[in-house]
């Protein structure tokens, strides 16, 4: 028709040629596919190198663990068949079960596992504690199926450490990968887990594909959290990441995907009212909201100011703003997640009776001099952005000056590591959450009282640290409980952090998806899709 148009089209056609060359070959259609919207994009694939929860979930697909936590929060053998402990509690002997194979066909050996544990021991907090030369004398593989751990002193958390459910999970890798520097990512995904990672089909930022590992031999027990038999019932699992919650919801409603791992709580009612969709809470422990003070800088270098702020942080306000629907949150005044063994109410009155008046009163007695509080607000994480807004309002209401600084999470993570004064890029408060499973006991780094080795915010309390270091050496659960109670008492007395309550993230899936495992971590074995 028009000359220009024709030329433009020709030109367009010329541009299209390289695109055709670059099209990836498409995989043959698989029989049974589970299409999942994961909670985040899988940015990196080495679960020892990063603590990102999405990478942990990926780890559970590809790798297996020696021990795994069951729904009573007790570690159970997973790759291990039998184990024994010497009478002096110093020598632990683990025997691997039969039939364990890497994805490349080679058998899993004890040497592989030793190397994997050692790499993990250089990155993970609990791993470092266990592999500390004061605790562990040696970790060896006397034969292909036997791992021997020799300790210098009895240590109560051996199985809790190597069977921990959340980041960093001690996943087993072949020795040649496990020998990679722990600060460098492994480049290939050879595990012994129930799924194989399809590297050619991985589109970072968009799509991850796993295929069933047909050689995997599951245990005979029924699944329970990460423990029990990992029976795979689909041929492929595809994770398709959606940056837009609204689009993700519509895709599930339209049947374009089967499973939506973390819909925003407010979308739950629409999803629940849509035909053929189930919405439920899959993680019974929930997440714990956390307002972290910087103990090094004024005004929060003053314990009275910290406690004044804590006394204003009424949990209901935070939860309502960040979560919205009451069925997805509950107040929890214990620092250890409510409903877990170490829950306690010692010293929790300051959180339970929080109000603006309380905060005002405590602030008046604190000698607060009007130093502005720098709040780092991560605008790309809605719940944390909401927490920041609520804190800003509360602090203003009790009479503090607030300097709200908006940034993205990645800037926040680098700024929170700075111990410098505010004028040199320091900060006073930021918000985050821990999944309950990460803060079950005093070993969690969130509760550290040692500023040299502790977590951002750097509280300094010798009494707290004594109780924490004694915890893994405790002889029985009663002693453990006593030490945990001491830890909470100190945390609240020194105003370590604001406890913002527990919230639960729903999952939504189409009704033809069956067999979800209730757990703090989403697993994809045992799930079937009826087509």
């Amino acid at each position, binding site marked *: 028709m*028009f*000359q*220009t*148009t024709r*030329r*433009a089209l020709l*030109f*367009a056609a010329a*541009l*299209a040629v*390289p*695109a*055709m060359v*670059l*099209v*990836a070959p*498409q995989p043959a259609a698989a029989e049974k596919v589970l299409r999942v919207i994961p909670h985040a*994009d899988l*940015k*990196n*694939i080495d679960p020892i190198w*990063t*603590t*990102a929860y999405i990478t942990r979930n990926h780890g559970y697909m590809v790798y297996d663990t020696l021990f795994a936590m069951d729904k009573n929060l007790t570690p159970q053998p997973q790759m291990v068949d039998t184990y024994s402990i010497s009478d002096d509690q110093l020598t632990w002997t683990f025997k691997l079960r039969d039939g364990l194979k890497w994805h490349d066909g080679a058998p899993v050996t004890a040497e592989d596992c030793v190397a994997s544990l050692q790499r993990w021991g250089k*990155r993970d*907090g609990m791993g470092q504690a266990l592999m500390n030369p004061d605790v562990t004398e040696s970790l060896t593989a006397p034969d292909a199926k036997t791992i021997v751990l020799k300790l210098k002193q009895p240590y109560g958390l051996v199985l809790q450490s190597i069977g921990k459910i959340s*980041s*960093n999970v001690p996943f087993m890798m072949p020795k040649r990968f496990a020998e990679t*520097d722990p*600060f*460098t*990512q492994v480049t290939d995904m050879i595990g012994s887990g129930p799924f194989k990672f399809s590297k050619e089909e*991985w*589109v*970072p*930022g*968009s799509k991850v594909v796993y295929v069933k590992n047909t050689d995997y031999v599951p245990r005979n027990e029924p699944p329970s959290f990460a423990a029990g038999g990992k029976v795979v019932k689909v041929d492929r699992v595809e994770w*398709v990441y*959606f940056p*837009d919650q*609204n*689009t993700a919801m*519509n*895709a599930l*409603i*339209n049947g*374009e995907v089967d499973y939506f791992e973390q819909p925003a709580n407010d979308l739950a009612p629409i999803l629940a009212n849509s035909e053929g969709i189930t919405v439920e809470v899959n993680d019974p422990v929930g997440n714990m909201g956390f307002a972290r003070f910087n103990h090094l800088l004024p005004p929060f270098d003053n314990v009275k100011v910290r406690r004044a702020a804590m006394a204003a942080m009424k949990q209901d306000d935070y939860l309502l703003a960040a979560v919205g629907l009451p069925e997805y949150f509950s107040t929890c005044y214990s620092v250890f997640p409510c409903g877990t063994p170490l829950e306690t109410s010692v010293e929790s009155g300051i959180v339970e009776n929080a109000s603006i008046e309380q905060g005002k009163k405590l602030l008046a007695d604190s000698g607060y001099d009007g130093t502005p509080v720098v709040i780092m607000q991560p605008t*790309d994480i809605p719940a944390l952005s909401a927490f920041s807004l609520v804190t800003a309002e509360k602090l203003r209401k009790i009479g503090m000056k607030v300097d709200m600084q908006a*940034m*993205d*999470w*990645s*800037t926040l*993570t*680098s*700024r929170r*590591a700075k111990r410098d004064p505010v004028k040199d*890029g320091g900060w006073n408060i930021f918000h985050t959450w821990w999944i309950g499973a990460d803060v079950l006991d005093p070993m969690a*780094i969130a509760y550290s009282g040692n500023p040299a080795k502790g*977590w951002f915010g750097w509280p300094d309390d010798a009494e707290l640290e004594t109780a924490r270091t004694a915890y893994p050496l405790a002889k029985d659960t009663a002693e453990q409980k006593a030490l945990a109670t001491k830890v909470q008492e100190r945390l609240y007395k020194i105003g370590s952090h604001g406890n913002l309550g527990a919230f639960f993230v729903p999952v939504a899936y189409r009704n033809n998806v069956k067999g979800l495992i209730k757990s703090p971590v989403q697993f994809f074995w045992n799930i079937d899709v009826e087509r």
Partner: protein
Amino acid sequence: MFSFIAKRVVATIPVMGVVALFVFLMLRLSPGDPASVIAGDYATAEDIERIRAQLGLSEPIIIQFGNWIWQLMRADLGISIFSNLPVTTLIAQRLEPTVMLSLTTLSFSILVAVPLGVLAAWKAGTWIDRAVMIFAVVGFSLPVFVLGYVLIYEFSLALRWLPVQGYKSPFEGIFPFLHHIILPTVTLSVIFIALFARITRASVLEVLEEDYIRTARAKGQTERKVLLGHALRNAAVPIVTVIGLGIALLIGGVVVTESVFNIPGLGRLVFDAILKRDYPIIQGLILMFSFVYILVNLMIDIFYTVIDPRIRY
């Protein structure tokens, strides 16, 4: 003519150099660094420092820039910090959806806008002209994402005609491809239709006043021949120029559209990379986008000298 083309090609080199330097400095002089994101919640300061060293971020900035330029010379865009894959691989994976969306958008916009513009110029001053111009101004004023949401709501959820999201390759079947690409194309096209229609109308009107058109009309040529044969042909230069400039706008629009319709293209790749501080991807992609822009505009310049021998630089 060849010396002109050669000169224009050589002239793009310093421009690319400016882009490279600018992008590099922008990244390195900003706060936030990938090492602390990687290190995660449990990391100590030493861990972060080790990761920085590992990634080559502890070296002096000049050395880093030199290394990068040296890499580029070997056509190597580097390795993504997070996914550990070569940036070229990541771009190759994402190229198709973006190229396809750009092509459908450009073709659709041109196919709609040019006739509209000609029509408006032909019927200048009538209600048809006014309607086209009102559409053009409104189309230019609508935020892309609002339009996208409204279209999804209407055509996918209410009428259930089209899918909500996603991309299907035309090499797997032309129908599913079209089915998925219609909404994003229409969403992204509105602004271009507005832009192209305006410029077509203005250029055609201008040409219609030239003496030779009056001569042609006086000689009794049909209105159709005057419009298409003379007016549009001579109005081609400004139209093509605007299409060339529109490439930059298109790349911007793609970032938003891909995010609304969940299309795994380059726009989302670069946006995610910026948020995560994945330096090699940001550097590589911005450089590539600029390169495409420069290339398209270079081709348009050459195209001028072909269609209009009067133009010399």
